[in-house]
């Protein structure tokens, strides 16, 4: 195994290159645009002085390469431009919305795992039986289900018909004032402030979005866990463990532990792209997270926002993959080679 210092250097180099690719990508997005960059950055009808400012700032009258270098410098100095919709710096807007998205993703992942892992394991053990086929059918349904449709169906049933859930107005009821920001999670902050009314409202608003995400994540996880566990069940060392007289519980534990690397890999891939699904969920529920912001920016052609959002999504995925890689290295000794 190569020295940790060398490995870290290589990793950082790779990360830097990938970030560069991301920046080229988001830059190209602007340049690929049908409309001239002034419009994309400045809105449908930019005022002359606004146009002039944009041209000067972004170097729109210079060659493309120069423009890219300028863009690079701006991004590295944390200047993501300004949204023409809100006139606010994009970075500020994104950062202020990150907690909302993280909260939703975290709960969604946890709840999804709570659904997906047991069902997947049970399906693998049932192997061809009725439960297995039912689980696989449900998983296919989950994969084919458009996220926003699930949200709408849940809203229809639980909000409109059964009146069990609040209207999709974001993280809190519109009539209440949100608690001061401590953790970024409205619910947690309300609890910290001992604001019972806000806390209850926040909790109620959490239920449907989290449920939607959980069902979707759970469906994908089920298939993943099922194949990982099935692969383990067929290994020679499991048969030997049985020959040694291990009980079902112990064998299940061994199988799960052996399936963990595969599950983790799949989970990583899921998480990296979870932003997309979460964005749609946020969109339906007006959640106030980065996803909603990004989708709104795309719909309204607010390109500074779009660029920032795409860059952020890519960076997030990079972090997730990097974390996973590190985890594997650390636990690498425990996981078999070949």
């Amino acid at each position: 195994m190569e020295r940790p210092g060398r490995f870290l250097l290589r990793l950082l180099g790779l990360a830097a290159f990938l970030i560069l690719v991301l920046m080229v990508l988001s830059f190209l997005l602007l340049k690929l645009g049908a409309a001239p960059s002034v419009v994309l950055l400045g809105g449908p009808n930019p005022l002359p002085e606004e146009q002039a400012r944009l041209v000067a700032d972004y170097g729109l009258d210079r060659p493309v390469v120069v423009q890219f270098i300028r863009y690079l410098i701006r991004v590295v100095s944390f200047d993501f431009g300004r949204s023409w919709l809100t006139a606010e710096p994009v970075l500020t807007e994104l950062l202020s919305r990150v907690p909302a998205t993280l909260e939703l993703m975290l709960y969604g992942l946890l709840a999804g795992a709570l659904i997906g892992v047991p069902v997947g394991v049970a399906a693998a053990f049932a192997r061809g039986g009725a439960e297995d086929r039912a689980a696989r059918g449900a998983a296919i349904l989950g994969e084919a289900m458009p996220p926003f449709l699930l949200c709408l169906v849940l809203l229809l049933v639980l909000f409109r018909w059964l009146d069990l859930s609040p209207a999709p107005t974001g993280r809190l009821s519109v009539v209440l004032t949100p608690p001061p920001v401590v953790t970024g999670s409205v619910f947690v902050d309300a609890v910290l402030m001992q604001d019972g009314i806000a806390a209850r409202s926040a909790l109620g608003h959490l239920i449907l979005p989290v449920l939607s995400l959980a069902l979707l994540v759970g469906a994908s996880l089920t298939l993943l866990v099922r194949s990982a566990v099935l692969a383990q069940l067929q290994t020679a060392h499991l048969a030997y463990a049985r020959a040694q007289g291990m009980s079902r519980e112990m064998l299940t534990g061994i199988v799960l532990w052996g399936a963990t690397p595969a599950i983790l890999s799949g989970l990583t891939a899921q998480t990296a792209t979870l932003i997309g699904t979460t964005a749609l969920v946020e969109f339906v529920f007006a959640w106030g997270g980065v996803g909603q912001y990004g989708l709104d920016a795309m719909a309204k052609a607010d390109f500074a926002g779009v660029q920032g959002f795409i860059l952020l999504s890519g960076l997030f995925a990079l972090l997730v993959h990097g974390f996973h890689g590190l985890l594997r290295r650390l636990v690498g000794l425990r996981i078999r080679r070949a």
Partner: protein
Amino acid sequence: MTARAMRLLRGLQDRGLGVAFGLLVLAGFAAALMMRPVVWPQGLAFEDAQRLLAFPSLRQPMGTDANGRDVLARVIDGARYAFMVPLAALVVGIGLGAPVGLAAGLRGGSLDLLLRRLLQGVGLVPPMLLAMALVSAMGPSLWHVVVAIGLLQAVGFARAMRDHVRAMHDSGFIEGAAAIGSPVLRTVMMHLLPNTLARIAGEIPRQAAWALGTLAAMGFVGIATATSGTEWGSMIREGTEYLLAGQWWAALFPGLALLLFGAALHTLAASLDERLLLRGPPGSGNSAGGRG
């Protein structure tokens, strides 16, 4: 004999049913799509001012939307996009991705490395979001949607092709063929491609399903406004406010069509996988699939 027959039947049912279901549903959509203009020529444009947002009835089995248009007719017509866009995008995706992957896999070396890193970087962004951003930049026309989705799929196909070719290359298969005088291109055409085809056969319907989902998402968010005719995602967008008020049919029926179509594709994919892939390691899927 009876016990054996039962076992055989069950086995066939398990495999055949999936493919049958998938193909049947798709055929049903296609048939409905083609027959509607014949059976019901005016169903699409007619706006029944007397029956706005009417609950499903015998005359209008899926009800009417806010403009009085018959939902069933529009849902059937929307199947047009469900067939066209994923198909066209696949053509773009494979047409662009496969040659690139092939070239990189065969050449190897720094070209291959560069491609891999590039694809890795691009692959970091959730494909659906990137496709949406592309359409948002290029403009909301249907063609742009196809290109954007196709490009994202090309990333996956390029990677899959490259991996496959590299594996064959490393196994000495290509060298061996060259050693006995077989021209590389011939080896590729006659052995590599059919092999690859069998392996990705299950992936194609899955990619089509992803394309459909992405198209619908674009329609729902309002990015691909040029398709807002009867594209299911846009129909859902238009019907959302009424759904929240309790008049669910205008939004839900297109949604069900989406779900059914997608489920058919996924079932097809799963069955193809089972038939064609040996029970090997899990996760041979890749490219622009998954939730993103």
